[in-house]
């Protein structure tokens, strides 16, 4: 039954037909869009199942811990495909992001076997990995008996593969040869400019290309627009203030958080170049940032852009993506631009946040859970999410080449593909991996707050911060 139709979609999945050819042939056979979608999913399932025993753990019940996020929604929407393919049952707990990591930490630190796999950020694995709470996924990825032959791990963007692998040595290079793969990249965000096209036209300015231009453009927008402020960046007393735009710009000048020599770490945020960068950043916030900047998190930065309270943000590209839709006042007015803070740099160097999947070491069915993880991070599911849901940014190079995905993004989010494609080669985690990451980076944000509030001059503030950080590193045996 439907052999001709099945053959057609099998050929498309195998790459023997282009999307246009598939659409033309489907029309000739009278296949509706809904039926086409179903046939495509079935064809993908057949392709994945062809050379691998997906039914090896039939009847197993898995439980996942998920964050309330569009990535989780895309997975849940496609989960039946996995259940049909493997005969496994999958249940999940979804928790809001505000409390999500408290739940994860509590579950892992108590050795709970309730959850087999869970969502995590790469930074968190710097705690979970050395503590022995999560499994090294190299043991699974590199084992052909456990991983299906079409998985194509190398298709995952190299910067993301490296950023989620660490050897556990403080200061150890991410993605080194001896690194353990603590998690699998699932969806990610890099940091660039998202701006209000109408406001830019009104003020007669172009998207800035470097930090000098950003400071000047933001000031002009604040002055000329008569209401909205020039640039939104995060400012709360949290490590999350440092990791988006700030670190992306900072890294573009070749600056680092720590120097590593003979296995010892030293604070590196008080170099002359770093001080110059901090001065410009502080000036930008003082002149053109939000009034209550020191309370700003992801939510405030995004909400202001969507509501027309700010003219641009230097933050996650997907934050600008979300603000261009929904019931946001400025829906359809948001543009995107790549940003290299250093005028001498050849390309942007965005720091990244990677929502990833990790395997709990306390799970009693790790092999079965890995089946789920490899399906959830497969090309097939990535394509499904990218084409039909808001599974942006996908982590696989092949998905970024997909015509249908690119067409959808280009139509509704002009400039988005360009900012991504320009920045992706340099996109990775620019922090130094070490166990005091959250504490020390939060202190950095606290110092930044004092500089913006003019409680501390930049030079003095950074020298004090570096001295304080060095002392803590020594106390912890890291410096």
């Amino acid at each position, binding site marked *: 039954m439907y052999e001709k139709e099945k053959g057609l979609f099998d050929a498309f999945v195998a790459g023997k037909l282009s999307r246009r050819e598939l659409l033309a042939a489907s029309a000739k056979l009278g296949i509706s869009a809904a039926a086409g979608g179903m046939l495509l999913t079935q064809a993908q399932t057949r392709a994945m199942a062809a050379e691998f025993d997906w039914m090896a753990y039939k009847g197993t019940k898995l439980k996942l811990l998920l964050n*309330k996020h*569009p990535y989780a929604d895309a997975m849940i929407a496609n989960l039946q495909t996995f259940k049909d393919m493997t005969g496994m049952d999958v249940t999940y707990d979804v928790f809001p992001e505000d409390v999500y990591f*408290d739940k994860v930490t509590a579950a892992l630190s108590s050795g709970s076997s309730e959850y087999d796999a869970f969502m995590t950020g790469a930074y968190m694995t710097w705690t979970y990995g050395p503590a022995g709470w999560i499994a090294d996924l190299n043991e699974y990825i590199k084992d052909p008996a456990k991983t299906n032959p079409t998985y194509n791990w190398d298709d995952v963007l190299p910067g993301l593969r490296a950023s989620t692998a660490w050897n556990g040595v403080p200061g150890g290079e991410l993605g080194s040869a001896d690194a353990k793969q603590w998690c699998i990249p699932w969806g990610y965000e890099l940091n660039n400019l998202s701006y209000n096209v109408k406001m830019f036209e009104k003020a007669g300015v172009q998207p800035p290309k470097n930090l000098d231009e950003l400071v000047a453009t933001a000031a002009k927008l604040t002055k000329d627009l008569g209401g909205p402020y020039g640039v939104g960046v995060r400012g709360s007393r949290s490590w999350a203030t440092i990791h988006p735009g700030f670190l992306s710009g900072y890294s573009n000048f070749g600056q680092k958080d720590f120097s590593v020599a003979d296995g010892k770490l030293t604070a590196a945020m008080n170099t002359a170049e770093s001080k110059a960068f901090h001065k410009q950043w502080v000036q930008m916030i003082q002149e053109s940032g939000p009034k209550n900047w020191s309370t700003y998190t992801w*939510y405030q930065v995004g909400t202001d852009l969507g509501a027309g309270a700010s003219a641009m943000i230097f933050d996650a590209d997907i934050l600008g993506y979300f603000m261009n*839709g929904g019931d946001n006042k400025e829906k359809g007015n948001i543009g995107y631009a790549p940003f290299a803070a250093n005028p001498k740099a050849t390309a942007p160097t965005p720091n990244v946040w990677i929502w990833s999947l990790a395997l709990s070491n306390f799970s009693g069915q790790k092999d079965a859970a890995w089946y789920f993880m490899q399906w959830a991070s497969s090309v097939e599911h990535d394509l499904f999410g990218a084409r039909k849901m*808001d599974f942006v940014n996908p982590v696989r190079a092949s998905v970024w080449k997909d015509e249908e995905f690119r067409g959808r993004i280009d139509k509704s989010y002009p400039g988005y593909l360009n900012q991504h494609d320009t920045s992706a080669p340099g996109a990775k985690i620019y922090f130094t991996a070490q166990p005091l990451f959250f504490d020390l980076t939060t202190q950095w944000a606290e110092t930044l707050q004092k500089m913006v509030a003019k409680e501390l001059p930049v030079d003095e503030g950074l020298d004090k911060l570096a001295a304080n950080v060095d002392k803590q590193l020594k106390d912890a045996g890291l410096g």
Partner: protein
Amino acid sequence: MDHTSTLEQVIRGVLITCVLVFFLFPIFWIVLMSFQTNETILRIPPSIVFEPTLSNYSALITGRLESAAGNLDIAFMKNLWNSFFLSASSVLIALVLGIPAAYAFARFRFRLGEDIAFTLLSFRFAPPLLVLLPLSLYFKQLGLTNTYIGLIWVYQLICLPLILWIVRGYFEDISPDIEHAYRISGNSWLKTFWKIAVPLAKPGIAAAGLLAFIFAWNNFVFALILASADKQPVTVGALAFVTASGIQYGQIAAAIVLSIAPTLALALYAQRYLVEGLSLGAVKG
């Protein structure tokens, strides 16, 4: 006879209005927000003139939330039920255990009595997270993780000390002579407790029960750590509207209105008992 002058009455009226505006304006604003979309809430400058919508309430009640990231399933009504069930059950059990205990502490002097009472009170001092991680290990061994029974048990950390200490103070304020007179008539100790002590302490018991209910309702961390998503109370559930794709202010406001409604109704109903019970229990004769 009232000697208040007109000027005093006017000043008093103005001051009362100021206090009411100060305390009630945030609630008034939240109620207004609950009838608006995100777009009108985030208008610059804000305005109280808008076209009201029931979409926030319908999203909460039907469990479908439309956001920038598409349609999302939400379980707010389930969260509301969990809060009600956990709080009401915990308070009921705490009343059953706490009232006799409070009576015993008030009327009898026994060895280590004060130490036991203070130990129970000290449950209120301990930071919940400090207790919860070890507790989660025990819960795992006892099979209580992710069960309503386990949660109601842990909620006793909130309810039991409150009820015990408030009701104890109240029992101490009631003269024991009435009970002695009743006992002399040949009634048992248990009958005296039920027929004399408890009815006399009713306002205090109502006040303590209400306070314990409010504290239990507002708890956040116990269910978060010890239970799965399907057993989370409204305090955790309301955070689901803070999503990566934006904050759903309208739905948050509607969720606040719905979640404070039960405690507000209960507090208004029992207001008389609350004031009387707390003030009488607090003053020693």
